[in-house]
């Protein structure tokens, strides 16, 4: 697992209070990991802080799974 993927996973485990094994690449924040709309906003903010990036709202809307988050950050992190 890439460094980015493991940091993303750690944030999700912390914020959503889920087990590490549940945080698979395909896992959807809302459908699989119990996040509501506010949780998802918080996750995006945590990713921004951790990776020092700004994720515009229209891009954030497309980040629905763990894999989406990792790919976006891999492409956009400095």
């Amino acid at each position, binding site marked *: 697992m890439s460094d980015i993927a493991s940091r993303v996973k750690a944030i999700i485990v912390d*914020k*959503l*209070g889920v087990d590490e094994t549940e945080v698979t690449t395909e896992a959807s924040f809302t459908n699989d990991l119990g996040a509501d709309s*506010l*949780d998802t*906003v*918080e996750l995006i*903010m945590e990713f*921004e*802080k951790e990776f020092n990036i700004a994720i515009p709202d229209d891009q954030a809307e497309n980040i629905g799974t763990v894999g989406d988050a990792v790919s976006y950050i891999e492409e956009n992190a400095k």
Partner: protein
Amino acid sequence: MELKRVVVTGLGAITPLGNSVEEFWKNLVNGESGCAPITRFDNTNFKTKFACEVKNYAPNDHFDRKEARKLDMFAQFALIAAEQAVQDSGINAEDIDSDEVGVIWGAGIGGIQTFSEEITKYVEGDGTPRFNPFFIPKMIADIAAGHISMKYGFRGPNFNTVSACASSTNAIGDAFNLIRLGKAKAFVTGGSEAAICEAGIAGFNAMQALSTRNDDPKTASRPFDKGRDGFVMGEGGASLILEEYEHAVKRGATIYCEVVGSGMTADAHHLTAPHPEGLGAKNVMLSALKDNDIKPEEVDYINVHGTSTPRGDIAETLAIKEVFGEHAYNLNISSTKSMTGHLLGAAGAVESIACILAIKNNIVPPTINHFEDDPEIDQKLNMTYDKAQEREVNVALSNTFGFGGHNASVIFKAI
């Protein structure tokens, strides 16, 4: 339309004197102080370095990590107290119409700690507003009532009352009146507060409202004593289940007592100072007595607001003498804030429980920390100094007064 009768069928408490109703009452009757040096933050530079904190409190003992993160401590205390009260009352979604159960909660401030933390993060940041999406729903005072309704599925009337230190008495009064009017069968009511944080302590210090007796915290809250120098901040939550009498009887509930009166008035005088002759305080007690034509002579015990501030304590005793005349000298009066500290918006709920258990047990909890008589306080009044007193208590009245000049009283009667 005939008004319904209202009774108390459940109690819950998490307080500086104990994290259950039993422990709270035991320590209250024994005259224990809940005061100690502040542990919640570094108080090196603060004028007041002590408070009445809830002891042995770890959010994760009550909530999972994800849940706890979304709850300011005032809402945590609300959920804990409400859970105890709901369990005590035995009401549950199966044998009660949940559309007929409401929640009215009182909090004077709400999530002051959450507010402070979020603003601090912003000010210390690079100017980009990165406010947490839970900032607002964690901080707003009404969220306590919302959380309780969501936990139990209670879909009746739902809101918070905000009237500073009278908040939870207003909540109890509103619940009482709505049941009387037939708007609901039962309410989870009460109040909670968690303001022992930098902004809470320094803010009240700036108003010179808090005691600064740092060399002897346990005796700092000394209502009616000549040496009193301000109130001691407390925190916690307390909850009452109010229920329509017939409804409670029908389901075989254990009834603590009846709620027979609720008063609400304003001083219309000053932001923080009480009316010097206690005009609003007098009117609020009279208003509460009027609800069921309770005669002043029927009252046995008054749990006073008595915060241990120089002016407030005097004004309240003047008001009591106005309302009760000669009977004032037959009353037992006590300020349990001498032990619990001042729980602000939760004070009314905590002190209502003190009244209810005084009725149940025929014991009046004391006003501790009496050292020197104040010539401005009528010493013929029985302030129940230092030791609890046994006495038949049929009717007990609780007073609370808030900054802004809000006054609220509630009266309980043995059934």
